[in-house]
């Protein structure tokens, strides 16, 4: 199985990437917008997956970091700065704020942490809404420009979709590298058993803060792409429900699985669109689908797959054992 599975996986991965590049070429404006939104939300969900799925810290503030990134990008690009500079600022800003937000995580855990981050999320929303000298208040910021990448204007939906897809690719590679590095292993140790991790010499303080800061920085990147994607932002999309949505994406996709956020964001962004033919019922159906999925598999969609694979592996292993045993018996 192992000798065969890896090339198959690579082929499948390449096919998906090719499809993501080629198929949208004849999509209409709205289809491209939805797909770009999927890419952006996947980046934000990947950040939360680092914090929650790998480091085990429940955060209800990821939406606020998307907001911070979006406002940073909106304010800077409307004042003539290029988008890459805005992205750097968004990363630095949300990394710093995420680091500070990590401090409560050192003191309180689980549901308490969820509520601290919930409070932060609401405070961020109030700042976006009330500091109109900076954020435009309830009127928001409009005419957010889209960038020129290597001299190519990305004003049209298709080029900007490629900007989002390219950013997703870069972030995916970075996260892939991160979770395979000693850092990622330290995060997992932190999630599985903080006490034991500490006794093994993992600096739990530092890694907890890092998990929050890196996860938040990815939220900031997502926000910095969201602003030019919609070209208009106001406080409403960044309220608590975005944080809850992102949390739902991570859990539904499969927290702690690398591909979880991709699937989770697909379900959260695309499923309501596919259910649109049901008119007003689509969010209701979506809610029911999420509840049924979680009752069936609390580890999300990839949890189902994981269990199936594990069962097959056990089966294969016991088959091998049986063969070995019968050989041993015939040899005797």
């Amino acid at each position: 199985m192992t000798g065969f599975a890896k090339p198959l996986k690579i082929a499948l991965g390449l096919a998906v990437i090719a499809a993501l590049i080629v198929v949208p070429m004849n999509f209409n404006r709205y289809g491209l917008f939805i797909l770009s939104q999927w890419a952006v939300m996947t980046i934000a969900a990947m950040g939360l997956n680092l914090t929650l799925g790998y480091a085990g810290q429940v955060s209800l503030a990821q939406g606020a970091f998307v907001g911070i990134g979006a406002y940073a990008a909106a304010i800077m690009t409307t004042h003539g700065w290029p988008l890459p500079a805005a992205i750097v600022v968004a990363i630095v800003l949300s990394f710093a704020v995420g680091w500070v937000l990590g401090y409560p995580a050192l003191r309180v855990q689980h549901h308490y942490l969820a509520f601290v981050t919930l409070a932060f999320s609401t405070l961020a929303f109030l700042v976006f809404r009330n500091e109109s000298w900076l954020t435009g208040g309830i009127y928001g910021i409009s005419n957010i420009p889209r960038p020129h990448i290597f001299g190519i204007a990305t004003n049209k939906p298709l080029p900007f979709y490629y900007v989002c897809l390219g950013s997703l690719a870069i972030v995916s590679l970075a996260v892939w590298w991160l979770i395979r590095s000693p850092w990622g292993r330290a995060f997992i140790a932190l999630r599985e058993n903080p006490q034991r991790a500490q006794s093994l010499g993992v600096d739990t303080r530092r890694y907890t803060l890092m998990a929050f800061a890196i996860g938040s920085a990815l939220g900031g990147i997502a926000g910095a792409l969201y602003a030019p994607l919609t070209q208009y932002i106001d406080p409403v999309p960044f309220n608590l429900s975005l944080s809850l949505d992102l949390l739902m994406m991570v859990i539904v996709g499969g927290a702690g699985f690398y591909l979880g956020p991709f699937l989770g964001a697909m379900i959260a962004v695309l499923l309501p669109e596919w259910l649109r033919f049901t008119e007003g019922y689509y969010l209701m159906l979506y809610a029911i689908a999420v509840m049924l999925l979680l009752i069936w598999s609390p580890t999300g969609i990839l949890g189902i797959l994981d269990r199936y694979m594990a069962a097959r592996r056990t089966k294969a292993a016991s088959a091998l054992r049986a063969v070995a045993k019968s050989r041993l018996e015939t040899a005797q």
Partner: protein
Amino acid sequence: MSNLFDLLVAGLATGAIYALVAVGFTLLWQTSQTINFAQGEFVMLPAFLMLAAMHVGAPFWLAIILGILLSMILLGLAFKMLLVDPMMRHGVLPLAIATMALAIGIKEAVKQFFSAEASPFPSIVPTGDISVFGHAVSLQSIGVLVVAILAVVGLTALLNRTSLGHQMQAAAQNPTVARIIGVPVERMILLTFLINAFLVALASLLITPIYLAKFSSGEVLGQAAFIAAIVGGFNQVRGAIAGGLLIGVLDNLAASYVSTQYRSAVPMLVLIIVILFRPQGLLGRAEERTV
């Protein structure tokens, strides 16, 4: 000065509602480790059940009874059996997410089957003002305060004075031991879900005449109740009550003395400070950390 008095009364009335909602939240947490993110929607729904009953011609008093009964069946029994029971063994987080999905579901269902517009709702307390120490105080505020206090006193008496209440507390504090000494733990857990459903229906009845019946009204209320429960100590019923009153009063004072724009920030700041310095809440007892 007169202003302060009015603010306090209004704050206590709001706080009493928060307390009712927060108490149910702590009850569910204590008996089944359920964080119900749909608690706000649980308060919103009964009002619509009552409105629906009135639409088909039921008089107000009958609609109230039907609404409370339906809410106990849907939000108590069905919620426990269909969502909490199958998910209980999976831990806190998946269940919390499932209740978020439930919140979306309830909101959308009301919007779809009833109306996206705010509907007026008859009050059980006559409108008008009475004079207290020379201040005009709205009868509604007083009515809300009285009913909420009665409900909370009744609940505390049930928990502390009756053998049923003692069994409930035993089941909440240590299910294993409770089971050994013969407490029907499952039935006690079901009872807390029914009590929660009753309390949210009562809160719905009290608050909807003031703020109108709207599909989205659960969000703010649910959040306020969570904060109240945590600030007060969410493993303690009396903590939830104190937290509710405190947040209600703070919210009203903040609106007039701090700024209307940042009024909702004040309870949030209180929440953050309490969680950081006294995570078990002002009146709560510390929970042992599990490794």
